[in-house]
């Protein structure tokens, strides 16, 4: 073996042989946190994800399509206090607008005329596809949902037919999420945390 390759092989072998032990209480710490997460999941859905603490970051406001929708829905929420859900449509989140201080009603719009169902997942609903289904509002494939969000920065993406993850074409994207896929980013209000 050439000496230079031998050096690399010996380095790799040394590192491969290395057994790094975790702290004796590592498993307990992980499971304690997991159990806390599971209790949050078990709590009544909407209130749980609206009230739990989360990391909030700041970035420029999301794309025009989203922003354009916001104004109309915010006005609606201010007047009526809730989001209107047509009879027969999948039930999107409907929450009193004033239930959390400073929250804003954000309308998300997605266009796909071949989808049979569309959901939105993100930081605001623990990436749970069952929480926030969009409703189809036109025969041209326009899907929409309005979600009350406290000021802050959120990552999200749409899920088409329960299988295909599609970032919002009208919003900025992250480079990648924890799972190697790009997400869209929306900033609500003038959050500074």
């Amino acid at each position: 073996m050439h000496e230079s390759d031998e050096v690399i092989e010996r380095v790799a072998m040394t590192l491969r042989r290395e057994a790094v032990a975790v702290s004796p209480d590592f498993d307990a710490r992980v499971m304690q946190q997991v159990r806390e997460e599971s209790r949050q999941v078990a709590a009544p859905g909407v209130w749980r994800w609206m009230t739990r603490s989360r990391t909030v970051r700041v970035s420029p406001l999301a794309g025009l399509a989203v922003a354009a929708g916001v104004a109309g829905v915010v006005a609606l929420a201010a007047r009526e206090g809730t989001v209107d859900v047509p009879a027969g449509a999948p039930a999107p989140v409907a929450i009193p607008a004033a239930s959390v201080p400073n929250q804003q009603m954000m309308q998300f719009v997605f266009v796909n005329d071949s989808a049979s169902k569309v959901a939105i997942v993100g930081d605001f609903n623990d990436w749970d596809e069952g929480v926030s289904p969009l409703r189809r509002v036109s025969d041209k494939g326009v899907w929409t949902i309005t979600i009350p969000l406290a000021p802050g920065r959120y990552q999200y993406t749409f899920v088409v037919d329960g299988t295909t993850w599609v970032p919002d074409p009208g919003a900025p994207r992250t480079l990648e999420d924890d799972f190697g896929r790009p997400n869209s980013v929306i900033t609500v209000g003038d959050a500074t945390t």
Partner: protein
Amino acid sequence: MTDRSAAAAPDAVLVRRVLDGDVEAYAVLVVRYRARYVRFATHMLGSVEDAEEALQDAFVRAYRSLARCEDPERFGSWLFRILVNRCRTAGARRGRRERTIVHDEIALRDAAEDHPEESVAWREEIGRALERLPAEQREAFLLKHVEDLSYEEISAVTGVGVSALKMRVKRACDRLRDQLREVYSARE
């Protein structure tokens, strides 16, 4: 399911149990993957303490997003991808600490006794050399030469193209050779 059968259950079975509400089944997955993955995180971050924090974060994030695990049979690979990202975040946030590659002295001594050619000094030199590598080169080198992944697997984990990965590994190897050749020769 008994403890013994749970310990032997495939990942997909355990993931299904967790999603069905059996939170404790997740502990089996934690035990199954912690040892190998903490090694990678320690090599990346240079500190067992930081590695444990990143690994704990990865386990919790994986639990939180378990419904998004598209192939539960490959839970381990999915978790590893999360961990790689957590290591990147942790590395960027804190930088590598001055006290890099922290290792338990007893563990090092035991390792040296098991493999006499692996002296503590040699291991410390490796640690310093790894520390000097840019994070993306260190990551590529560890995944290729220590975790023994193929370039295609590394690409899937990191989201980086195979050509770029090969270049990173080559540069990492060049730097490690330059820094360690002399020390290595002196050992013999």
